[in-house]
């Protein structure tokens, strides 16, 4: 009997843990179809449980160093969030309805302002819930962002984007990403994201025009650039050791996987959706390289459990996809 992983020499040893997605399309399809059926039978009430089952599978099919991730959120938790979210949205709808009767423009303005104000709360709530329910070898993730700080940041960035007619959008995306990812903890490990709005803006402008010039072909390379920008500026540090992340996805690879998925979906009349999604997850996992001197075995438990799933459910209603 001995420890599986010998502790590294104090001088700092480089390692590159493998991220893998080992799910299979058949099983995933089975889960989705059972979910779909139960949702249909219960007129949608099963949704929170369906979502828990789906996330469970996707998380446990993702492995780091051959140990899988766990999503420990439950349908019951999410159902409570679901009810609260519905209540909130109905209340919001009634208020908008009343204002609409007073004056249509007033209603529309209130609606837009309401949604804008709601968004940061939703993102914050969903991040807290989702990360606190994610773990690896028993070590919980966590999101430590401060709600009022995030809401203030979001509103500031959003207003700037509106005022600049969307040109500030690249900065907004990157600044929000900087804030959110830099507040994610992996036990005692800390994620950091250091992106620059200007770089991201240049990348997008280049991608935009080249995509138009090449009649869309460059779109795949644009996508690969964005993906690389999202991945390569991320780090995970534990004490004075750190991991860097690197994307190995190229435009050509993106082209391949997207084309394949489109063919699968078209020729199976959409039934192959599950397989297509699995392909995409595999693609993403395979194309993230992690390297550095962090010792994963030394990550320790620091994060608390958080069980309020209202943000998670609201995020679904507003069609935000958070993975």
């Amino acid at each position: 009997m001995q420890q599986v992983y010998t502790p590294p020499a104090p001088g700092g040893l480089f390692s590159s843990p493998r991220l893998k997605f080992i799910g299979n399309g058949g099983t995933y399809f089975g889960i989705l179809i059972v979910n779909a059926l139960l949702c249909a039978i219960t007129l949608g009430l099963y949704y929170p449980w369906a979502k828990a089952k789906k996330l469970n599978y996707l998380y446990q099919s993702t492995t780091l160093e051959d140990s899988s991730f766990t999503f420990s959120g439950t349908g019951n938790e999410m159902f409570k969030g679901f009810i609260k979210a519905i209540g909130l949205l109905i209340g919001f709808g009634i208020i908008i309805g009343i204002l609409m009767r007073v004056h249509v423009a007033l209603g529309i303005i209130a609606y837009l302002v309401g949604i804008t104000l709601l968004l940061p709360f939703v993102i914050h709530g969903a991040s807290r819930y989702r990360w606190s329910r994610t773990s690896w070898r028993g070590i919980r993730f966590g999101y430590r962002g401060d709600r009022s700080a995030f809401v203030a940041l979001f509103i500031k960035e959003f207003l700037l984007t509106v005022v600049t007619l969307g040109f500030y959008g690249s900065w907004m995306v990157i600044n929000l990403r900087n804030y959110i990812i830099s507040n994610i903890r992996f036990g005692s490990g800390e994620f950091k994201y250091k992106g620059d709005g200007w770089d991201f803006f240049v990348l997008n402008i280049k991608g935009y025009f080249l995509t138009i010039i090449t009649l869309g072909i460059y779109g795949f390379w644009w996508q690969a650039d964005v993906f690389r920008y999202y991945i390569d500026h991320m780090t995970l540090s534990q004490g004075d050791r750190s991991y860097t992340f690197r994307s190995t996805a190229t435009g050509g690879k993106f082209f391949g996987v997207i084309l394949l998925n489109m063919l699968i979906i078209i020729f199976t009349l959409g039934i192959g959706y599950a397989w297509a999604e699995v392909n995409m997850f595999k693609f993403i996992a395979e194309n993230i390289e992690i390297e550095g001197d962090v010792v994963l075995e030394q990550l320790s438990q620091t994060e608390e459990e958080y069980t309020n799933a209202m943000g998670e459910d609201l995020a679904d209603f507003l069609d935000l996809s958070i993975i």
Partner: protein
Amino acid sequence: MYPGKYFDNKTAALTTVDIQFYQEYLEFRMNRNGVRSRLSWLYKEINVQSVNGKQLRISTAAEGGLEIDDPECISAFSKLYYANRGYSVHEWLLRLGNKAVYTVALVLLLIVGLCYFVVLPILADQVAQTLPRSFDKKLGELAQSTLDETTDTAGSKLLTAFAGKINWETPDTLTFSVKSSKIDNAYALPGGYIVVYDALLKKIKTKEELAALLAHEVSHVKFRHSTRKLCKDMSTTLLLDLFLGGMGAYSGLYKNANTLHSLSYSRKYEKEADLEGLTLLKDNKIDQHGMLHLMETLSSIKQPVNMPTFLSSHPLTKNRIKYVDRQIKKHPAPAVQNEDLEKAFRKLKELYPS
């Protein structure tokens, strides 16, 4: 004794352990940095996750968890653990892998197919029947107000006079009108609004043909085809939304598949209207061959590419001619020369010469 790896919920380190399974609990021993220890967990207090049937993760709230990938260990554990408590559909799916998945998927698809092709139409018809006929009327009025067409008043009066000579055997109040359009078309809106375009009137040569055309349209109204189709379409959309929404998949392809099916569904209605139309002709002692001639007239019309409604939803003329012919031979009936009808028809034809 089976091999496994233990994590203690304090750090992410894994320690190899030896696991042993008993009837009600499992036990494992380990040696960490020279310290020997032993833990045992009751089956009822553990949480089990099977990763694609190849890896097992057992976890507890307070004492950490185990990762097991030894196949013998997994099967030994499963025998004892699931014997005690059985497993849910989801767990079963995850454990048995592809074979189970395809079986379940097939069964579910069959059930869904059955719902879609059999249960739903029946249910939708049931719903349509509980709707009062005044609903059809309202629907027809609404539809008419959205269709911006010019009514030919003189022609409409003559057509109404023609139709008045026939007993339509229906409780609906029928309104006949002629509208001017370059398209050779006729349609029936729910609630009894029957419209014939003047272009089509010009092509019709005999009173029997016109009677057959009206009989077909009146039958649509009588059987409430529009309302039934609406109920069917709406419930199908609802089902698809619920089903596909739950599956997280959304594809325009489904919608198209549905449209295709709803087209064939309406063909069933067309046949019903044709056959009922024949009965109406027979009951009024009008020559049923008018229906055949009408179809020949219709099939001789050259279809522009974007031809909506009557013709495009009545595309299988050959097939229709076949079953109409068969029906006439099965129920032959004497036709009586109806002078009033002939007169009304001639007046109409004066307005719309061939």
